[in-house]
């Protein structure tokens, strides 16, 4: 019996102690007509236990089923070098198989990691406090929106300005999560020349009505850099909170939300995947959420705090739990319970190994590689940049042929050529978003160039 240690003697002794004739008897409170004899409807191959050896063979076959394509897709998930130490440490049993640190004294390892993570995220974002993770970047943005709506004492309307330059999947996610709480998401169109969000577009979208918050992506989906200072100041001038949606690798080079405009953004959130998480089909990733001290009691999710033990020695514990569902129930700041703890561990170790300088080098190399890629591809006839403004480590291109066709043909040569912009932005059809992180080589880029050349 895989993973069950009971010998038949154990079982017999235990049943005798209970005073039950059989294990079956232990289920006698379940109405008989509901009892299932076994698990029906499974394919035969899944009925009996498969030894680890067989499952290994199966999974190895599936893991290699799709070859080893070279990837130029970014759009919210980035292939970066992950130091070998990160996952060798993160998967140590004591991190991997621990629960949420409810018993603080027995969980100082996890708790200190959370505190260190919070410290690193506040350093990166320039804000005062951080929580200890949310599910992913998109759901973190949803929580940021809800938080802003709750926290804004000046504006009671639940109107939130959401630039169209935010990743379409993020906007969809926010919508799914917030729409029944009376939040109105107002889309702000991007500038067709610059690819960014202008003050004029904001004014038009707000149409003079008070808004609780403005979301400011930096860089935005197109890789384009937004005028974050002006946008933040505009928000504050209109009594809206400013929510920065940021890429943590970009923060190595770009102004942190805490420094935006005159007063700094109020909230920053985003996807932590670039900090040591493999692409892994999209998850598990790591949502982060930081804010100013003033907003801390509106922050959803777990927070670790530093305290002292009976002897006055420092220690760490979960704190401000009165915000959370297990104490506050229907009045909690969010329903989140299980979060992305193990990914927090990975990100913390990753950030320790990279440091500010390492992160900066990674960011600069990604940016330079994408610049090279873009330069090479735009040598080709009919391939040109979609937008004029400066970008960071991602480039939107216009193609001379339908993007799906081009991508399919590239995929046949094991090149994943980018993110099809036309699906979410029909007006940008045929548009393609490309990205070459620091792991892409000059040879990879040449290969892409040559393959595309053959197609056009």
């Amino acid at each position: 019996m895989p993973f069950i240690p009971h010998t038949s003697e154990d079982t017999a002794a235990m049943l005798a102690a209970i005073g039950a004739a059989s294990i079956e008897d232990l289920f006698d409170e379940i109405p008989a007509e509901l009892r299932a004899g076994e698990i029906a409807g499974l394919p035969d191959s899944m009925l009996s236990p498969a030894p680890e050896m067989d499952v290994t063979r199966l999974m190895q076959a599936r893991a290699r089923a799709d070859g080893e394509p070279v990837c130029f897709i970014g759009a919210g998930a980035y292939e970066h070098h992950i130091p070998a130490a990160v996952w060798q440490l993160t998967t140590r049993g004591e991190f991997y198989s621990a629960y949420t640190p409810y018993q603080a004294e027995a969980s100082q390892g996890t708790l200190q990691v959370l505190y260190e993570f919070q410290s690193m995220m506040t350093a990166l974002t320039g804000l005062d406090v951080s929580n200890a993770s949310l599910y992913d970047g998109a759901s973190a943005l949803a929580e940021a929106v809800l938080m802003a709506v709750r926290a804004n004492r000046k504006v009671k309307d639940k109107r939130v300005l959401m630039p169209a330059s935010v990743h379409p999947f993020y906007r969809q996610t926010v919508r799914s999560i917030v729409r029944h709480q009376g939040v109105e998401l107002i889309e702000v169109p991007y500038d067709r020349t610059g690819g960014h969000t202008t003050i004029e577009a904001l004014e038009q979208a707000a149409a003079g009505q008070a808004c609780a918050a403005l979301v400011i992506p930096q860089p935005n989906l197109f890789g384009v850099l937004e005028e974050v200072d002006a946008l933040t100041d505009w928000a504050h001038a209109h009594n809206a909170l400013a929510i920065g949606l940021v890429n943590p690798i970009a923060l190595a080079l770009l102004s942190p939300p805490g420094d935006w405009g005159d007063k700094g953004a109020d909230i920053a959130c985003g996807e932590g995947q670039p900090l040591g998480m493999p692409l892994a089909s999209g998850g598990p990733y790591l949502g982060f959420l930081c804010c100013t001290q003033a907003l801390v009691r509106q922050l959803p999710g777990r927070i670790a705090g530093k305290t002292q033990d009976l002897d006055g020695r420092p220690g760490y514990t979960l704190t401000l739990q009165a915000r959370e569902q297990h104490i506050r129930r229907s009045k909690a700041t969010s329903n989140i319970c299980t979060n992305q703890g193990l990914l927090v561990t990975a990100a913390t170790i990753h950030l320790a190994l990279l440091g500010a300088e390492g992160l900066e080098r990674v960011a600069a190399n990604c940016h330079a590689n994408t610049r090279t890629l873009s330069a090479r591809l735009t040598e080709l006839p009919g391939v040109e940049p979609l937008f004029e403004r400066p970008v960071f480590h991602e480039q939107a291109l216009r193609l001379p042929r339908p993007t799906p066709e081009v991508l399919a043909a590239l995929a046949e040569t094991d090149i994943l050529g980018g993110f099809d912009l036309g699906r979410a932005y029909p007006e940008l059809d045929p548009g393609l978003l490309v990205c070459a992180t620091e792991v892409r080589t000059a040879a990879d880029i040449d290969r892409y160039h040559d393959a595309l050349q053959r197609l056009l």
Partner: protein
Amino acid sequence: MLIHDHSHPGRRAAAQAPLTTPDCADLPTALRRQRRPALPEVSELDTVRHYTRLSQQNFSIDTHFYPLGSCTMKYNPRACNSLASLPGFLARHPAAPETHSQGVMACLFDLQEILKAVTGMHAVSLAPAAGAQGELAGVLMIRAYHDARGDHARREILVPDAAHGTNPASAIMAGFEVREIPTGADGDVDVEALSRALGPQTAGIMLTNPSTVGVFDRNIQIIAERVHAAGGLLYYDGANLNAILGQVRPGDMGFDVIHMNLHKTFSTPHGGGGPGAGPVGVAKHLEPYLPIPLVARASDDTFVWQDEHSHHDSIGRLTAFGGNIGILLRAYIYARLLGGAGMKRVADYATLNANYLLKRLSEAGFQLAYPQRRASHEFILTLKREAKNYGISTMDFAKRLLDYGFHAPTTYFPLLVPECLLIEPTETESKEALDAFVEAMIAIRAEAEQEPETLRTAPHQLPVKRLDDVRAARHLDLAWKPAAER
């Protein structure tokens, strides 16, 4: 010591960064960072040593018996980790084309099928990232269902007082109001109170069965009948399926929608707080509303994604991509290691262990919250007698267990039982582990009588002594700051 305390200006783990910093003059200065973030500056050895030692300060399944009720801390098979981490799985971009995603999609499709079979539901979406997100998805589907029928008055969700805090919180996130239903003295939902609460405003009820008080609600069929009769839907909080796998199916009990915590029943690791995975299963009438993406099998036997383009009525996306896929893979591997037969055995032995522990503790004189009832995968003790007689609290008792090398059971949950311990041994623990736990409980009770101060100041054997939670909340210190900013 924090990793920041090891920091030294200029120190680096040099192998981890590219050799050079290319020029980025094309990034406008106004948008550039002015000073470097205060991240630690440490060597690779510093880092490895620091986190290795930190890890050793944790209790975990791999080191301790961890009978944390409602959390299902069972063995996380190591193969689940290594096979889900095969390079082919880790390297796949979420936006890779289907042509380059068949391996992982086959696993996800199989997992959908397995979860359907296990729960008796008509269709499953793997998208929710954890239990609470599964709940949100579930109640959003209930809402979508009523809305689609123009039944807009159904704005109330019923939740038993024993329910997990995520239940009411999720209902609120979906824009519902929450009404609490009391639990009867026998641990089952008070059916009469429930009946009184039902009405045209009822959107549905969120139930856990076996419930969080550790018993199987014997009236489930009556409840289902009455809620349905009132026009409401039944939501099943399947965070804890460990006691019912292969024994009874939520679909057969009459539930319309269910979420499952794969990070409990399907043994994916807890990772010190996550990640989890909270798939949802639905009866046929809710299928159109399932969260996206889903995996389907095309006529040519290849796997295809279904998203907003094919599922117009979906409640939508819950994360940017497909949820916690790496965790779904771990659950799938676990399911294959067990097979259907093994899953049923999980419930058999989880139930056996819980009832054995219940019996032994009760014979040792501990007071059960529901002495007439069978345990499901877990059960509740109340220490109110010990609290009164010896002036100790359940928390004191729990902290002292740590000294004995046992993680404490869940304390003070569910809220309706005073001074309670919710105990869930799981099927992967041996009789000896349970017996040793009983001995420790008895020994600690003797200490409570003879030297209660030992409990009140426990733990004594851990890296830190009792931590001051009040101080943590009063003098908020949530992040290390460089000296200049302190």
